[in-house]
């Protein structure tokens, strides 16, 4: 991605795309693909399904882009993704077991703390794995708020809009989710202290 692409706003890219410039859409897809895919992946917990939803989101975007009037394209994308995930859950009761694939997360943790000792690395990996499992165990609406807030850094106003609830409800869901994660965190820290 070059400097011009960074400087060009989503709105300008949408306009360019509507004027027939296909490369503008490519820039938009590349700009938002990681955040959007991460969100969908953590909601669906399946790569295959995440790719299906990802593709479907963009098909909807392309279909409705002529009527795009919003200021925040990222929020619009997340809202479409949220709706598609919910639709899938409605049509198929959520039977997916907790996905134990933590390879990517652990790998990224290892990259992020190269100077830690092997023991510290192992402890951090353990905590991360437990938190990841705890996030996966959260009810969908709490998990979504936690993901959107902690991972994608979205404000509560937008999260509330995506979930079509009040800001108070979004805050309450976040609080419940954090309470469960804190319990896991505290248990792990306690265990670490005991081991030490």
């Amino acid at each position, binding site marked *: 991605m070059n400097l011009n692409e960074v400087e060009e706003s989503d709105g300008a890219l949408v306009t360019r795309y509507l004027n027939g410039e296909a490369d503008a859409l490519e820039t938009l897809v590349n700009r938002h693909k990681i955040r959007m895919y*991460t969100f969908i*992946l953590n909601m669906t917990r399946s790569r295959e399904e995440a*790719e299906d939803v990802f593709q479907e989101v963009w098909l909807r975007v392309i279909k409705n882009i002529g009527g795009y009037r919003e200021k925040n394209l990222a929020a619009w994308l997340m809202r479409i993704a949220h709706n598609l995930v919910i639709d899938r859950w409605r049509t198929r009761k959520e039977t997916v077991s907790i996905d134990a694939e933590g390879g990517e997360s652990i790998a990224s943790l290892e990259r992020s703390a190269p100077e830690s000792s092997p023991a510290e690395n192992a402890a951090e990996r353990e905590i991360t794995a437990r938190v990841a499992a705890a996030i996966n165990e959260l009810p969908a609406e709490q998990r979504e708020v936690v993901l959107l807030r902690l991972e994608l850094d*979205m*404000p509560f*106003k937008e999260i509330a809009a995506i979930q079509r609830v009040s800001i108070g409800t979004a805050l309450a869901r976040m609080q419940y989710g954090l309470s469960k994660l804190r319990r896991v965190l505290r248990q792990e820290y306690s265990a670490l202290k005991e081991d030490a």
Partner: protein
Amino acid sequence: MNCAKSRKMILLKDAGELDAKRCHELDGHLAACSECRDFFRDMVSLRSIAHSAVRSGEPSARVVEAVLSTAPIVKNRPGKIFALSFTRFAALAAGFVLLVGGALIIAPWNRNSDASSSSAGDVSTIVAMLSVEHENSSTAPENGNPAQLRQLARQLLEMEGINAGADDESPEFILLFEPQPTDLQSRSISGSLPGECV
């Protein structure tokens, strides 16, 4: 401020959605409440852990390619372009129909008024021609003989197929056909200045 409210304020502050007044209130509460301070600290820890704990990745190139390959079909939006063209075409067609319809309705009225105006125009022309002829020809009726001029004008109009009116003494006919000497001079093609008598 109680702890339940304080924790919501902590979340809002972390998201940058808390106004200055409430921030100040929150700071006061945090200074006095160790449990809320722990909540705040845990939230910060969880944020950093969550970045590692959350599975991240990107879609396969095949999926991105599939999205982009679908785009050209939609981007041209032929349906929309056609819809716009059709709307414009419909508006133009409606305008054309109104124009033609209006012209057809108004045409008979125009024809009547054209006939009378052409009669008047013809008469004026004839009278002017007659006056020129009178100036140039010795056989022409004498200047100031309106009866002869009227007769000639009527004959010429009849030759053209225009009914100049049976009643040549009617006020309209006189108004249109009475060749006043000054009028004749002023209409003269010879270009004599008004007021100059021959």
